[in-house]
């Protein structure tokens, strides 16, 4: 019997399938699980058991990685509810959102070209605010309203905003070094 792939990541960690999870508990369970299945526990045992342990430890790592990051956690929750936000292409976004994104993108490019660290920092903070409110939206839609379509919409926006924030961070790092 291979790893039981029917159990989803929340079930594997004994957690309710909610966006708002207790991250301290998540980390505790992760460590408890790894201390049971990690290959270091099986290094002196026969090959078949070493292989089984590697499959489990790989699965536990994948689950932890997915649940720990809020974006991948949201995407995973939507996926087990039948909404794929990871592989879809050609999703139409509302024009006002796209306009705002373009403006921010231009501001980032200008600040980068002018080596304007303060400008980039300000942009970073504004993006932080938007990220926080979008995650709050995701949590409300998934955990309280069970409105997966609305949650998916917020996740798609988040993907845009997070990518832009990464670019701003990279520009800041380049200026710092």
């Amino acid at each position: 019997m291979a790893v039981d792939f029917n159990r989803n990541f929340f079930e594997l960690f004994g957690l309710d399938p909610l966006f708002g999870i207790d991250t301290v508990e998540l980390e505790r369970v992760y460590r408890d699980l790894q201390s049971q299945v990690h290959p270091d526990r099986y290094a002196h045992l026969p090959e078949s058991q070493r292989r089984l342990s590697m499959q489990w430890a790989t699965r536990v790592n994948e689950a932890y990685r997915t649940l720990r990051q809020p974006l991948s956690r949201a995407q995973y929750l939507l996926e087990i509810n039948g909404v794929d936000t990871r592989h879809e292409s050609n999703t139409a976004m509302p024009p006002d959102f796209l306009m705002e994104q373009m403006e921010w993108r231009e501001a980032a490019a200008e600040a980068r070209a002018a080596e304007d660290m303060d400008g980039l920092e300000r942009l970073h903070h504004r993006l932080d605010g938007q990220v926080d409110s979008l995650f709050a939206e995701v949590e409300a839609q998934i955990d309280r309203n069970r409105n997966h379509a609305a949650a998916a919409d917020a996740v798609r926006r988040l993907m845009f905003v997070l990518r832009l924030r990464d670019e701003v961070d990279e520009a800041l790092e380049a200026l710092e070094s």
Partner: protein
Amino acid sequence: MALLQISEPGMSAEPHKHRLAVGIDLGTTNSLVATVRNGVPVVLVDEEGRPLLPSIVRYRADGAVDVGYPAQSMQARDPRNTIVSVKRFMGRGLKDVAHVEMMPYDFLDAEGMVRVRTVAGVKSPVEASAEILKVLRRRAEASLGGELLGAVITVPAYFDDAQRQATKDAAKLAGLNVLRLLNEPTAAAIAYGLDNASQGVYAVYDLGGGTFDFSILKLSRGVFEVLATSGDAALGGDDFDQRVYCWILDHASIAPPDAHDARRLLLKAREAKEHLTGNDEAVVLANLGSGESVNLMLSRDGFADMTRHLVAKTLGPVRKALRDAGLKPRDVNGVVMVGGATRMPQVQKAVAEFFGQDPLTNLDPEKVVALGAAMQANVLAGNRQADEDWLLLDVIPLSLGLETMGGLTEKIIPRNSTIPIAKAQDFTTFKDGQTAMSFHVVQGEREMVRDCRSLARFELRGIPPMVAGAARIRVTFQVDADGLLAVSAREMSSGVEASVTVKPSYGLTDDEVAGMLRDGMEHAGDDMEARSLREQQVEAQRVIEATEAALKADAHLLSAAERADIESAIARMRQLAEGGSNSRAVKAGVEALNQATTEFAARRMDQSIRRALAGQKVDEIRV
């Protein structure tokens, strides 16, 4: 109600039975072997009481091989056949090795891993490293009085896949069972962290003879979690020697030295460097074979000035790892110094300034890696005691990916991912009726394939002919707990299994390793079949012991009939292993027993997981 002792996986089922295991620090300049004796990690010394084995291998015309001090004493007289710092060549091509023009070796200009032509024939770095490992294995067996169950061998955290694989191949040639390849800074953290019962975020600054590693770990409740690692696989104490050597050539008015004099002066450069750790000035005195002589004075400040750029070069990876971990220098609770090169005062000063605190140097920086490796080997061998309950969660240092259109890299597994890890990616055909597809596996952070390390190329054949874009080829990357990558590919839509052949770019193929193993045995008058029978018998014993321990602990997971099946499989296995049969029969028996216990093993794993979720103490359960 009785209390039943249930052994956790990895905990010794029979406490009186101590399995022999060692930790080996296979260093650029020196190597060490250590073990845990009566609960205390100790470095094993040679007959003359010396803990270090210089990582120097000399090949002689009669086929004999000198390793360590005897080779070291001949290096100036026989530089062509005396290989120093062989670690720098592991898993590397000739063009990757720095300062080749200054080295006295007769390099073979061929594709793949660099090789050296010696008086005893062409040698690969893997073979030379195996000679060092053999000496350490014999030292350990003589000192511990028995055959080793296995060894933990340390590698720089920043070693790529080819370098790790080369290290594992060397161990195989040396007849060592590798329990784990362990990252050097992580090994140091074990030795350090357990000694000091530390909690919090620690950094390990490891400047060895030829490699630089920097790792950030979070220590809590017996878990060592590596948050980020970075480094430079070609930067170490050797480079400081090289700087002094160049300074000698610039300041002593001598003709360009031949290979012998070059080695002599390089040794003088190293002596001067070491002298400057505790003194303000060093005198460089040498009489050369050319009849010329050198008489120079080097001050500590002068040495610090000429190596400033090397020290600065280590801070780049330090910043990168902090960034990856999302931390600032002030978030680090302590900085552990590892590697002989961290004895240099200018290095300690730079680290202290960067982190705003004095680095921790209370463990011998040259021994700490071997001691940590020994502690981990003890645990992996199954000698774990209840109070030695720790867990290592390590990461992969460099991203792994595939080449895509236009020479671009597609990252499959990002750097600093916790291992073991697996990721799959789907690809498709771009021509109608296409039946084969080739892949190029690379490692590194750069966008262009030509700036990354090439690991291997492989081809998937036997794809059923379909229209372009219809085939779905799933490529899976699996990185195991040694940090080693295995790649597999299959066509998903038809379910047809296609065959994969992998050609490593800078490694040895399985056939080459098998060939070297055979040659080595013929040389030693060993019999291949006898050795492989012995190995299979050991494995058979291991499977029987593990199965019996499992039956003892968890028989309740089996029905009476299932239990009877397993017991009869054990009996058959025992007959096979004890009868003077051939290795293939024993191997088939091992596989049959493994087969018979697969379901049982899966149920036990499931039980462990359920208990972990229930938060129960597993070693004491009320029944």
